């Protein structure tokens, strides 16, 4: 087992806490950078989707996992990013302008959606964001002059300096943006802004008493989360090449929240693990369907499996996939002294009555 001896305050601020982390992240980085050389076309596509979903995961993790605000409407931000990108790309706007524009527009909308969050909590906020999702879906279906409605609209491929960005180039773009998103989240979390988010999640009353401006930080969290989702939406538009409203339905929002819950609420790593799982699962179901008899593979099988997994994870592994990994790692580190109750949530002592 590893003991970290910190000898200066700067040790706390380092991106990687010890050499082991540098090694493993380096290895992961190398594998991902060299992926076009060893991965086939199918695997490359999966990796691109995992990168895109990871960006959404990071955004939603900051909002739900670290600020404690539930959103069941993130597919709407994905839609805003995707349609913005599609419209700008069609007019020949380069990606280094259009992707920030998609992020900015989603962020602006995030601020608007964040407004009810200043008054609503928990399940009520979830319902408000859910309603927002339905509204945006309806607008994309009806506003035919811009979105082409249910007929859908094609998306031009990414063009950089007049030439098309190939599969490989697009993969590197997604990888770079996912890495940047992760870094941005880590930076926020090790600075006052991120700590204010965590404070709001754990106790709003004492956060306010310590000088955290609740309204401001909740709004910032919503905007940041929406901006990341907007970026992911822009990439998604290019990847799938065709947009229609049903790609951003409520079910997609549920899929996105699944990333966070499945990955492990409150762990950035969880966002990536959750994204990978959510991408791989439908493929696995599709394969399973070929083997199952007709009656056992109805068309709604995927939704049922998603729902069942969500329930099982919440019941039996509330810390998600990353929590499971932590437990396994701790088991090996402490062998043979691991105890079953080590990760059990401690019972909270009586808390001051909720004031609002």
């Amino acid at each position, binding site marked *: 087992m590893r003991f970290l001896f910190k000898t200066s305050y700067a040790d706390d601020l380092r991106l990687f806490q010890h050499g082991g982390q540098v090694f493993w992240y380096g290895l992961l980085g190398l594998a991902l950078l060299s992926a076009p050389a060893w991965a086939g076309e199918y695997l490359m596509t999966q990796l691109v989707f995992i990168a895109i979903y990871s960006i959404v995961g990071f955004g939603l993790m900051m909002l739900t996992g670290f600020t404690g605000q539930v959103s069941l409407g993130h597919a709407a931000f994905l839609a805003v990013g995707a349609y913005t990108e599609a419209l700008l790309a069609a007019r020949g706007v380069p990606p280094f302008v259009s992707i920030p524009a998609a992020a900015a527009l989603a962020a602006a909308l995030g601020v608007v959606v964040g407004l009810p969050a200043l008054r609503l909590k928990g399940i009520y906020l979830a319902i408000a964001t859910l309603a927002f999702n339905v509204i945006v879906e309806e607008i994309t279906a009806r506003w035919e002059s811009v979105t082409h409605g249910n007929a859908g609209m094609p998306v031009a491929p990414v063009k950089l300096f007049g030439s098309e960005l190939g599969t490989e180039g697009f993969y590197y773009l997604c990888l770079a943006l996912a890495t940047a998103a992760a870094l941005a989240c880590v930076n926020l979390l090790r600075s006052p802004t991120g700590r204010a988010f965590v404070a709001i999640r754990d106790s709003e009353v004492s956060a306010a008493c*310590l000088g955290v401006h609740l309204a401001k930080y909740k709004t910032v969290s919503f905007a940041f989360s929406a901006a990341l989702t907007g970026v992911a939406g822009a990439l998604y538009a290019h990847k799938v090449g065709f947009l229609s409203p049903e790609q951003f339905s409520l079910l997609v929002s549920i899929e996105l929240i699944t990333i966070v819950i499945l990955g492990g609420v409150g762990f950035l790593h969880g966002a990536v693990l959750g994204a990978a799982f959510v991408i791989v699962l439908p493929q696995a179901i599709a394969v399973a369907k070929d083997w199952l008899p007709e009656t056992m593979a109805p068309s709604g099988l995927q939704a049922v499996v998603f729902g069942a997994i969500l329930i099982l994870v919440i019941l039996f592994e509330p810390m998600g996939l990353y929590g499971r990994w932590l437990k396994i790692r701790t088991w090996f580190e402490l062998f043979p002294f691991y105890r079953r109750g080590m990760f059990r949530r401690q019972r909270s002592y009586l808390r001051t009555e909720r004031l609002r």
Partner: protein
Amino acid sequence: MSFLRVENLGVRFGGVVAVDGVSFEVRKGEVFTIIGPNGAGKTTVFNLVCRIYPADRGRIEFEGRDLGALAPHRLAGLGIARTFQNIELFEHATVLENLLIGRHRHRRTGFWRDLFFARAVRESELAQREAVEKVIDFLDLAKYRDSRVAGLPYGVRKVVELGRALATEPRLLLLDEPSSGLNPEETDDMAFWIEDIQKQLGITVLMVEHDMGLVARVSDRVLAMNEGRAIALGTPAEVQADRAVVEAYLGAGA
């Protein structure tokens, strides 16, 4: 100009008059304690001073400034910090992180510089850690520095919460029942700390407390409340001997 002045403060929740025209002044540098039987309105006075509830009437002034117009999060910036009766820590963060959140009002950077972890953020973070370590030394919390609050015993949490309030570098510290849930030794430590906070750090303390031993030991002046009203004010000995106070606790004829 007095340090903290509360004048004719009143609030009612539906038909219950929780605080009914309470006035008192806290002088700079003293430990001022509010006592009273359960339901006397002590914690409500605290929450009114912290602007968690709006007052129906009356005025609260801190160094001549009317607090009535300020949002709750503005008070920390003026140098007012508080603890809670039943502990309101950030459960899923470490002790160090909890204390660092206490430094929120001393942050020097906003969202954009935080996003890129700019040099200013790094320098500010180092300065915050230095300040937090002073609090950790003061309260002897070093061995819990990296423990999650969720797993700590009640007595330690109480100290962490005190530390978090001190990390804000307040000039007025509000302690809501600092000894509740503590064993006699821990209560003794708490008394020492309150004395040190007053004498070494020069922080004015306003507290609500039930343990009369602790109250008599650390308080300069005591205000007794009953049924939302102030019934006696004076030194601990004076208040303990007051007829109205004895009646409030033990009933008439005692």
